[in-house]
C-alpha cells in the first residue's frame, strides 16, 4: 500500500507524535508534561528553559500538525523518483521542510522572550492575528503555493539536493501561510487541545476548502476568543 500511498510516511510520523503527546498528557512524565497540558491544569512554562527544551515542543508541533498537510508534495517527491530511492527522497524532503520551520521556531522563541505569556490577551492574540490574516489580500495566492512542484532529478547527488531543496521551498510556502497559527500555539504555550483543534482546522482547510474560503478565519477568531475567556476566568 505504501507504493500507492507514500504520503502515509508523513501521516504515520504525525500519528506517532500525537500518540506520544496523548500518552504524555495522560501519564505524567516530567519533561514533556510541563510543556504539554490539558486546559485548566497547572501550567509550568519556564522562560529560562534551555534552547533545546524550548525548541522541542516547537519541533514536535511541526511534525504533528504540519506533516498531514504534506500529502501532495510527498507524493510528488515519491512518484518523481525510483522506488528504490523513495524513502530517501521523502525523508530528505521532510528534513528540508522541518529545517525551514526550525529556523522560524528560533525566531519565534526569541520574540517570545519579550512577551508576557501569562497575559490572557497575549496568549490569544496569535489566533486573532491568524483570523485577521485570512481576510487580508494575498492569502489565496500564498495558499496555492502549497500545491507547487519542481523537477526532481533521479540520479546521484542531484536527487538528494532536489529532494531537500523541495522540502525547503515547501517549508517556506507553508510558513508563509501557517506561521500565525503556529505562533498562536506557541503563545498559548502549546496547549494540546488547541493543537488538536488547530490541526483539524488546518487539514479541513487544506483539503476541503477553496483557497478563497473565509471559514478558517471565523474558526481562529472563535478559538482566540474562547482561549481569552478561559484565561480570564481561570
Amino acid at each position, binding site marked *: 500500500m505504501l507504493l*500507492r500511498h507514500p504520503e502515509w510516511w508523513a501521516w504515520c510520523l504525525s500519528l506517532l507524535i500525537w500518540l506520544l503527546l496523548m500518552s504524555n498528557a495522560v501519564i505524567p512524565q516530567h519533561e514533556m508534561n510541563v510543556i504539554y497540558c490539558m486546559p485548566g491544569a497547572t501550567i509550568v512554562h519556564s522562560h529560562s528553559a534551555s534552547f533545546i527544551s524550548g525548541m522541542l515542543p516547537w519541533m514536535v508541533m511541526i511534525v504533528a500538525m504540519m506533516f498531514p498537510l504534506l500529502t501532495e508534495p510527498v507524493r510528488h517527491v515519491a512518484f*518523481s523518483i525510483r522506488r528504490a530511492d523513495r524513502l530517501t527522497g521523502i525523508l530528505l524532503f521532510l528534513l528540508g521542510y522541518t529545517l525551514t520551520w526550525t529556523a522560524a521556531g528560533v525566531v519565534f522563541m526569541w520574540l517570545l522572550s519579550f512577551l508576557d505569556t501569562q497575559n490572557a490577551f497575549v496568549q490569544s492574540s496569535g489566533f486573532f492575528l491568524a483570523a485577521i490574516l485570512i481576510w487580508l489580500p494575498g492569502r489565496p495566492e500564498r495558499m*496555492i*503555493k502549497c500545491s507547487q*512542484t*519542481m523537477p526532481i532529478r533521479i540520479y546521484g547527488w*542531484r536527487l538528494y539536493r532536489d529532494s531537500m531543496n523541495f522540502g525547503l521551498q515547501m517549508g517556506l510556502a507553508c510558513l508563509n501561510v501557517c506561521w500565525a497559527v503556529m505562533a498562536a500555539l506557541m503563545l498559548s504555550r502549546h496547549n494540546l487541545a488547541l493543537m488538536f483543534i488547530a490541526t483539524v482546522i488546518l487539514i479541513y482547510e487544506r483539503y476541503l476548502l477553496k483557497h478563497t474560503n473565509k471559514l478558517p478565519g471565523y474558526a481562529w477568531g472563535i478559538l482566540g476568543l474562547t482561549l481569552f475567556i478561559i484565561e480570564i476566568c481561570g
Partner: protein
Amino acid sequence: MKERKDVYKLPAGDTTLEWYAKAVTKMRELPTTDPRSWNYQGAMHGFNPNLPIWRNIGPLPSPAEQAQFWKQCQHGSWFFLPWHRMYLAYFEEIVAQTIVDLGGPADWALPYWNYSDNTNPNARKIPPAFTQPANNTNSLWMPGRTNTIPAMYVSLRALDTLPFTGDGQTSPLGFGGPQTPFEHSGETHGALESLPHDVVHGIIGGAMGDPRTAALDPIFWLHHCNIDRLWQVWLNMGNRKNPTKASWLDFEFDFHDKDGNAVKMDCREVQDTRQVLSGYTYEGVPPAVPHFEAGTTRDFSLPLEVVAATNKDVELDSTPKVVRLPLSISPRKKQKVRSFEAFTAPPTTFLHFENITGTGVPPIHDVYVNIPEDDGDKESYYAGSLAFFGVEEASTPSLHQPGTGQHYALDVSELMGKLRTLPNWKEDELDIKLEPIREMGDASVKIGRISLYTE
C-alpha cells in the same frame, strides 16, 4: 430538448450560424460588467488586463466578483470536461435567450465542429461562416487564425484511453485528466485535453491560442462543443465510466444563468446531457451510457515507475532539439533500470514533460522518439505533440495557480514496442526530438524535466 448538430451538416438554408452571429454582435454591445456580455463570458475562461484584446473594455466587475466568476476554467484536471460542459450549457442558454430577444427561434442550439470527420474533406477547415468575409463586418471572424488544421492534430486516439482519471505517473494518463482540487492552469493535461483540444487551440492561434483570450473567439464554442461531444462518444464505447468520488461529483462551480443571476452547478448534474439545464443531445450520438462492467478493464493498481529522466532543464528555441534519456541509474554505474526486452507485450509507458514554463504563445512542438538523422518515415517515430496551451499563465503565480508550469504526458506504449524492433534501437538510451512547427518569435519555453514512466 435541444439537439446540437454538426456545423458541416446543417441543412441548406439553416439559420443557426446567422442567429449565432447576431447574438455575438448583441452580446458584444453589452457592458463587460453584465454577466451575459461577450466579454464577461470570455473572461470566465481566462482574462489578463495587460493583453491588447482585453484593453479598453470599459469598467470591470469588482475584484471580488472577478475572483469568484472569472478565470475559472479548469485545465490539467479531472474537472476539465465537467467544467467546460457547464460553461457551454450556460453560454448556450444565454445565447439562445439573446436570440429570442432578437426575434429569433426558441430552439437554437450550439453546433459542434467535428474536425476529425474523415468523410468530410473540408472538416479540418474552420467553417466558412467564420472566415468569410474576413473582416470586422463578420462578427464570427477573428484575426490571426490559421484556418486549416493538419490531419495529425485531430487524431482521436484519446478515445482509446480507458480510465477517466490518471496522471500518467501514479496511474496511466486518464481520458479526463488527473484528480486535482480546483485547477485553473493545472498540471498534467489529460488525454483528450492534450489531443485534440490543446493542439486545435494552438494551430488555430490568434485569440484561440491563449486560454486567457480563447473564449473571445466565436469558434471556441464550437470547438468545445465537439470536445464535449467526444466525452459522450467515449462513454458510449463501453468499458468506461466517469469518476464516482464525492470529491468530483459534489464539486461546485459558479456561473450565471440566462437572466444574469448567479448560480452554482456541480459535476453530478452534468453526467447526463439530457439533464443539464433544459437538456441536450448530440446529433448521431446516443445519450444513454452503456452499463459499465467492472472487471473488464486492465488492472492499474500499481503506480508506474520512472525509469529515465533528464538531469537538467531543456530550453527550446526555433530549431529542433534532441534530448538523450539515459535508461540507466547513472552514466557511471551503467546499470539498467528497466529492460524493455523483458516484456512480451508493450508495457504501459508514458513520456512526461514536466514543469513546463514559458512566456507568450510558443509554437506547437512535435515529439519524435529515436528518429533517424534523415528523419526517415517521420510518422513511425511520432509520439505526440506539445501545444503549450496556457504555458504563460501556468508559469505565473496567482490566485489560481502556483506558477510552477504545465505538464504533458504522451502515451508511447505502442511506439516503444514498435521501436524495439528497429535496427537503431539502443537498450541504454532514448533520443527524444522536439520539433517546432514554426518560429518561436517572442515566446520562450523551458521544460523542467523529461522523463519516462513505465510498468
